[in-house]
């Protein structure tokens, strides 16, 4: 992991409690850690962009061109949870399991940079994992239900609710 403020390796991982029940993590090289910890020095602004999002912007060998490319990628929307790639970049959090497929091309270099590998080699759930179709159907129908309720289309909402119950029963 690199220092948040320069290209040196981060050797300090600092967790600050910024307010009751909230904390923030920092990753710094020696020099920037010292700056951060010295109260008289500049105050580090609480950045809205997560450390992860910064990492994403700074994928090795990407540089400025990647920023331009990423603006196109930013507009991608997950059909299941409706999150845009830009929202992920800003928060560092994905919206649903299906995002790993929708944003696959953008996520792979990030996974490579964070983990040094891109393929799982560990525990496999005992139950056969559901296929993508099964995994996403319910999330999608629940979204449709939310929209139907918002549009006050209660007839559609009732049908969708029944459909959800049916699928849940089938999967149980």
């Amino acid at each position, binding site marked *: 992991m690199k220092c948040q403020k320069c290209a040196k390796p981060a050797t300090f991982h600092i967790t600050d409690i910024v307010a009751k029940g909230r904390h923030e993590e920092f990753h710094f090289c020696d020099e920037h850690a010292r700056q951060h910890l010295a109260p008289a020095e500049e105050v580090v602004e609480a950045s809205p962009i997560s450390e992860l999002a910064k990492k994403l912007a700074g994928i090795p060998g990407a540089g400025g061109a990647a920023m331009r490319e990423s603006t196109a990628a930013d507009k991608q929307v997950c059909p299941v949870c409706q999150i845009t790639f830009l929202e992920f970049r800003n928060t560092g959090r994905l919206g649903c399991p299906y995002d790993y497929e929708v944003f696959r091309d953008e996520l792979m270099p990030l996974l490579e940079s964070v983990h040094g590998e891109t393929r*799982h080699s*560990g525990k496999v759930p005992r139950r056969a994992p559901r296929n993508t179709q099964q995994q996403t159907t319910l999330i999608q129908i629940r979204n449709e239900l939310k929209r139907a309720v918002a549009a006050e289309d209660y007839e559609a909402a009732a049908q969708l609710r029944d459909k959800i119950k049916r699928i849940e029963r089938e999967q149980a």
Partner: protein
Amino acid sequence: MTLDDMTRTSGEWLRGTGPESDIVMCSRIRLARNLADFPFSNRASRGEKLGVESQVKAAVEAAELDAVYFDVNAMSNLDRQFLVERQIVSSELAGGEGPRGVAVTPKENVSIMVNEEDHLRIQYMLSGFRLPEVWEAIDDLDDRLEENVAYAYSSSLGYLTACPTNVGTGIRVGVMVHLPGIVAGKGIDKVFRALQKINLAVRGLHGEGSQAFGDFYQISNHQTLGKSEEEIIRMLTDVVPQILQFERQARQDLVTGRRQHLHDQVSRAYGVLKTAQTISSEETMLLLSSVRLGINLGLIDDLSIATVNELFIQTQPAFLQKLHGGELGVEERNVARASFLRSRLAEGRGDDE
């Protein structure tokens, strides 16, 4: 079991038993898991979070853990903080919003957070250096939960998590170590750098505000994708003994080089804790760390390590306020803390309930 009952007990992981427990306070593993049929917590509506909560609660019940579920959403801030201090919930869960909670077993070895960053954050802790044992237990628990819920999983990327830094195994394997010798010998930066090089993270634990938590550090893995759980555990079980050796050497250096100075420092620390009338959290942590070192080096012989371990938690703000039965200002807390310390230390040895 209620939260008030918990003020009269303490977690098994504080017991100070198990291998290397003079330095390794506890071994901890957490697994991040999500339900396949719901968006991740940050994207879930209130209704969806309730859905996740009820499914997980049912799965926990079916797993027959003898766990109690606490509704964190309905709790006061003080109670939330109380759970954070005990390492049962994360500050993210405490400070979050919407339906969320935690299932805890009576010995506090197991906690299952619901609707944290991931739908489930399963944690298993044991006192001492016992990572393989912890893995065996949490692996089994994970299997039992999975009998009743469908996890989001892909064969190529493993367990899918809200943050890509946890994807794959979703595992965080860690030990909480007490390193007063290395700190006194000014070697802690070197340890940080060495661990960094082999891809392990070291974090200082923090108590009230941002002051260090009595020379305790947490060493854990970063990487969750591409290595198996066993490989990740092996990284820790290979490296931690070297740190323990380094700490033992540093302690030995203190004893041989500056025995009188060390004995004086330990005795003064113990004396202040036994007699102070008002004391800050910061000073308490510092002195408890000296006392803990003193017990391990045989300089104090009328106090159990379990009592000192517990005091690190029981002198935190929320615990003191729970004991008092309501909120206390900083000054009042300092008085309450000193009074609590005096009474606990007067009980002395033999208190290892």
